[in-house]
């Protein structure tokens, strides 16, 4: 019997520390293991006893790449527990902040972390030094404009300080947002050019029949709020998440693994949102997707790089719309009266569905906290992709297989810092 192990002990160009192992026996894959060894930090434990008002700032520190996502899910869960409604202008401003994070996170991943896989470079800096300087500079400019939204609304790019349970600390000045709008008008062309760049890449011809899960909103492409839906007919309120999804703890990972209650792997993130909510994208974003060769249905995860670019374009348009409609509001925050309660919140982080649930004591302090990040939910799907997509390339050189495995994992824009509670690659041929 021939046995081979292909492994990567430190997966690069992802946020956090993960590893991967494929075990091959007699030319057949017998096991795939996607391992998160990012050290556990125990947020759900030390949140207990903290005040409800501290959750957005503390949970932001789970991830420096998508802190806004943590803040958005946290505030909604808290507001449900406390029984308060946040005004529409305050909610629109939250969607604007989220647009900024989608742009910066999507462009960071697509251009700086994922594109080098398609073009055969170690990094975006090597790409820039070898004839792709214009693309990298374009991406950096677009990412910067996304960050400028986060700064203008949230105070700073990483761990914004303006988000508050019940609303905001301070509604930004319209004139400050209009200054960002000028850059966003330029970003429309940059984002469209970036979609076209991704269309020129070559994609492995692979797809799977995924169970796709995302939020869905009555009118808007999902981001800040909505119901949880799937392509298998699921349509539930956010508060029913735990009745339909479970988290398992496996020996090879410091991240819990999400599955449906029936034990199925599922996929959350840009591919799920695009397939489930395509008709809610703007006409310009749909046209850019069509030009890039995407139909309304796309189950090739390697094409997620284009979907991220399309979503970044959409987020630019959406940010312009929100800024133009924005009117300063006062008070910035509704009054909060502490009470006992349970609250749930789910939003669409750039890399997928992010669920928070808290139980509060009568004095408003946190009794229990549950946080289910997108990468934890995607882990079983990542393992299934590896098993399914590399079976026909096992005769190729080790380095080539390893690169394909890494690219396959990066399709998910895995955020390992988030999921701990993830990456290195091992192919075990015995």
């Amino acid at each position, binding site marked *: 019997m021939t046995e081979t192990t292909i492994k990567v002990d430190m997966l690069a160009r992802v946020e956090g520390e993960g590893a991967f192992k494929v075990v091959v026996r007699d030319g057949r894959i017998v096991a795939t293991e996607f391992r998160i060894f990012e*050290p556990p930090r125990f947020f*759900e434990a030390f949140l207990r006893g903290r005040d409800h008002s501290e959750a957005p700032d503390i949970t932001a520190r789970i991830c420096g790449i998508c802190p806004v996502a943590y803040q958005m899910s946290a505030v909604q869960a808290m507001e449900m527990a406390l029984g308060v409604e946040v005004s529409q202008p305050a909610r629109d401003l939250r969607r604007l902040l989220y647009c900024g994070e989608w742009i910066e996170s999507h462009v960071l991943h697509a251009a700086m972390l994922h594109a080098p896989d398609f073009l055969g470079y170690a990094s975006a800096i090597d790409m820039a030094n070898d004839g792709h300087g214009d693309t990298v500079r374009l991406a950096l400019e677009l990412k910067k404009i996304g960050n400028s939204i986060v700064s203008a609304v949230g105070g700073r*790019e990483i761990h914004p*300080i303006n988000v508050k349970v019940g609303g905001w600390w301070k509604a930004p000045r319209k004139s400050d947002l209009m200054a960002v709008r000028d850059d966003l008008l330029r970003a429309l062309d940059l984002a469209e050019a970036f979609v076209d760049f991704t269309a020129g890449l070559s994609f492995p011809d692979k797809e799977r029949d995924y169970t796709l899960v995302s939020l869905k909103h009555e009118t808007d492409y999902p981001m800040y709020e909505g119901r949880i839906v799937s392509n298998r007919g699921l349509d539930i309120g956010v508060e029913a998440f735990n009745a339909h999804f479970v988290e398992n703890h496996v020996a090879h990972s410091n991240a819990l693994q999400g599955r449906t209650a029936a034990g199925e792997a599922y996929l959350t993130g840009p591919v799920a949102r695009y397939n489930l909510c395509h008709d809610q994208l703007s006409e310009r974003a749909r046209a850019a997707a069509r030009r890039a060769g995407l139909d309304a249905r796309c189950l090739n995860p390697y094409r997620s790089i284009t979907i991220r670019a399309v979503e970044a374009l959409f987020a630019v348009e959406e940010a312009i719309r929100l800024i133009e409609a924005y009117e300063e509001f006062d008070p910035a925050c509704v009054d909060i009266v502490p009470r006992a309660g349970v609250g749930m919140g789910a939003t669409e982080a750039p890399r997928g569905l992010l669920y928070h649930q808290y139980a509060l004591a009568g004095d408003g302090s946190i009794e229990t906290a549950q946080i289910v990040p997108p990468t934890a939910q995607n882990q079983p799907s990542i393992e299934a992709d590896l098993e399914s997509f590399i079976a026909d390339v096992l005769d190729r050189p080790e380095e080539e297989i390893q690169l394909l495995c890494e690219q396959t994992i990066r399709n998910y824009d895995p955020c390992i810092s988030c999921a701990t509670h993830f990456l290195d690659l091992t192919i075990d041929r015995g």
Partner: protein
Amino acid sequence: MKPRLGVFKFSSCDGCQLSLLDCEDELLAIADAIDIAYFPEATRKDDVGHYDIAFVEGSVTTAHEAELIQDIRARSSALITLGACATSGGIQALKNGADTAEFIATVYAHPDYISTLDTATPISDHVTVDFELRGCPISKHQLLELVAATLAGRAPQTPAHATCIECKLAGHVCVMVAGGQPCLGPVTHAGCGALCPGFARGCYGCFGPKETPNTAALSARLAANGTARRDIGRLFSTFNTNAPAFRAEAKAHD
């Protein structure tokens, strides 16, 4: 020869090293001046050889990390920590003094799969650190100053005075005196430009203690303003909870 830079991650959120990629206008210029030899968040290149500069993000929370930092120190000329985790332990230092086994059991179904130390500790508890950059997250402007100063062979200009001074320079109305809100500005290290007061919010101390902070005097003032004892304790025990001055003040409000 360009100096070789290694960027290393310990227990953290990735946000401080992301600040390097967030230098959108300067990143390619930095890459021209410095050989970014190891930076797994951005490049596949392997960790080999000696570094002229090592940037370390994150705190030490596992036995593996405690060994790794020794190896990185031995292979680096200048070791510089980036941010609150590496400099004081970070938010995860909230587990220090708690029951680790109970913490593991709270989060994980199979505690036996989890390997972790009882504490989250700053890098300086383990090896000699040449410079510590504050913040949760660090300031991009201070990071660029640190890179420029390091290339020029001079000390970075990152004043250790209070956020209060930046706040006065920015011309903000005092959120504590005029607004009655709890604010850590008087005892917090400068660097953010007094961001929170600019958003009508008290400073929450993410840059950690300033030089010689008088935390007891601030606590007395907070109490006089009506801040509950438990809330004063919480205020000092967030992202720099393990910084000695903040830890002691939080303990005094247990």
